[in-house]
């Protein structure tokens, strides 16, 4: 998909997790406008993707708060600065363009910014793909990580893999229209809603879903375009082949550092080294904050990331307003520009 749009802004923030969101606040207080880019379709990063319901206890002045609530509050906190979000797309290139940086996203959007704050956590979230040989050749056609169009599975032989709600719910939902549904899981227990698991076992008893337990995915069979079978094996190595037209793999989300390794920031094992007091990377005008930023004795905490966001914003000011001295002010004196007072 190409939206073919160009933007110019003060600061581009890569990653809309809690730390990226708070970076918008810190930049906003210094009158720097931000664009935020994230691979997920929703803001919040890991807090949204991995543990929205988990309570967090170490956010100052919030004795207990779910990860989802934390994200919601940050969203409200930055609303006065009207950041522009570019979600569901990954930054695929970051390059110097004169005295600015140019970012290109996977949807073809170009953003020019005076400074860049990389708040990419453990990398961009995408489907947790099973590491099967040649799987890329079948993706989108015969291998799926989400169901967008269930009609395409009518009369087809399906292998569904995974043990969570998505795997169980889609096995149930597609049992009617598919020719065959095999559900591959590594153990007896499914981590899905109890009523779904009951329904699953009912359909298994009726012979409309075949359970393939305890197996995990081992390989794909096909001509490189169309799938003909899925290989599965037990932990003891006992292998079998299930004839299939489609594989639906539901193993949740996984992060990939992806192109960040190629941006000349010295990333190593998922960490971009920074100067701790400014969060400056080796590239002038590019800062890294949160889990992806590394320095000796780094504490990977959301609260550390918040402080890093403040440091990075203050250091980025010199790149956005090179001719202006930064007059330091507290939010108690300035208020929040654009925010209606209560």
């Amino acid at each position, binding site marked *: 998909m190409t939206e073919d749009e160009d933007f110019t802004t003060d600061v581009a923030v890569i990653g809309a997790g809690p730390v990226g969101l708070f970076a918008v606040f810190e930049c906003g207080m210094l009158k720097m406008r931000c664009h935020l880019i994230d691979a997920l379709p929703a803001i919040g990063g890991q807090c949204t993707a991995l543990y929205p319901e988990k309570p967090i206890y170490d956010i100052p002045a919030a004795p207990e708060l779910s990860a989802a609530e934390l994200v919601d509050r940050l969203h409200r906190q930055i609303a006065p600065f009207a950041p522009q979000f570019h979600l569901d797309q990954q930054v695929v290139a970051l390059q110097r363009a004169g005295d600015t940086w140019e970012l290109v996203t996977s949807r073809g959007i170009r953003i020019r910014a005076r400074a860049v704050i990389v708040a990419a*956590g453990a*990398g961009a979230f995408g489907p*947790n793909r*099973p*590491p099967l040989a040649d799987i890329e050749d079948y993706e989108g056609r015969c291998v799926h990580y989400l169901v967008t169009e269930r009609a395409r599975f009518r009369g087809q032989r399906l292998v569904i893999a*995974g043990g*969570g709600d998505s795997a169980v719910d889609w096995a149930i939902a597609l049992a009617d229209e598919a020719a065959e549904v095999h559900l591959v899981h*590594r153990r007896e227990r499914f981590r899905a809603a109890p009523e779904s698991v009951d329904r699953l076992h009912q359909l298994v008893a009726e012979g409309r879903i075949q359970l393939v337990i305890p197996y995990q995915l081992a390989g794909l069979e096909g001509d490189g375009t169309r799938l003909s079978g899925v290989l599965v094996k037990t932990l003891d190595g006992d292998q079998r082949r299930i004839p299939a037209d489609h594989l639906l793999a539901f193993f949740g989300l996984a992060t990939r550092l992806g192109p960040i390794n190629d941006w000349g920031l010295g990333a190593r*094992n998922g960490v971009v080294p920074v100067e701790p007091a400014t969060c400056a990377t080796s590239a002038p005008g590019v800062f890294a904050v949160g889990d992806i930023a590394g320095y000796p004795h780094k504490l990977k905490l959301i609260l550390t990331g918040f402080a890093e966001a403040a440091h990075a914003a203050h250091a980025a000011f010199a790149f956005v307003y090179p001719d202006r001295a930064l007059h330091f002010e507290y939010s108690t004196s300035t208020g929040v520009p654009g925010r209606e007072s209560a």
Partner: protein
Amino acid sequence: MPIIHVTTVEGEALELQADSGRSVMEVVKANDLPMLAACGGALACATCHVIVDPDWYDRLQPPSEDEEDLLDTAHGLTSTSRLGCQILMREELDGIRVCLTPMD
């Protein structure tokens, strides 16, 4: 100080010093070895998946249901797969052997 024998995905054998009370994941990360450990030990992902030597597996505390649920999302599981963040080092585990798993 207990020692962890770590074999990397490439087959390199290493001996790591592990303070008691630190997790295998923390020790592996502290030694700058390839392991994503995306959630940082919050028991919210499976990217610190390690394969424990069968001789050592039964000496560990059994995995919690939460850990089992996350192992469901790991690939290349074995009967001695564990999450590195859930193995806390103590004197009795001195000499434990684990293999790392591919990062991607």
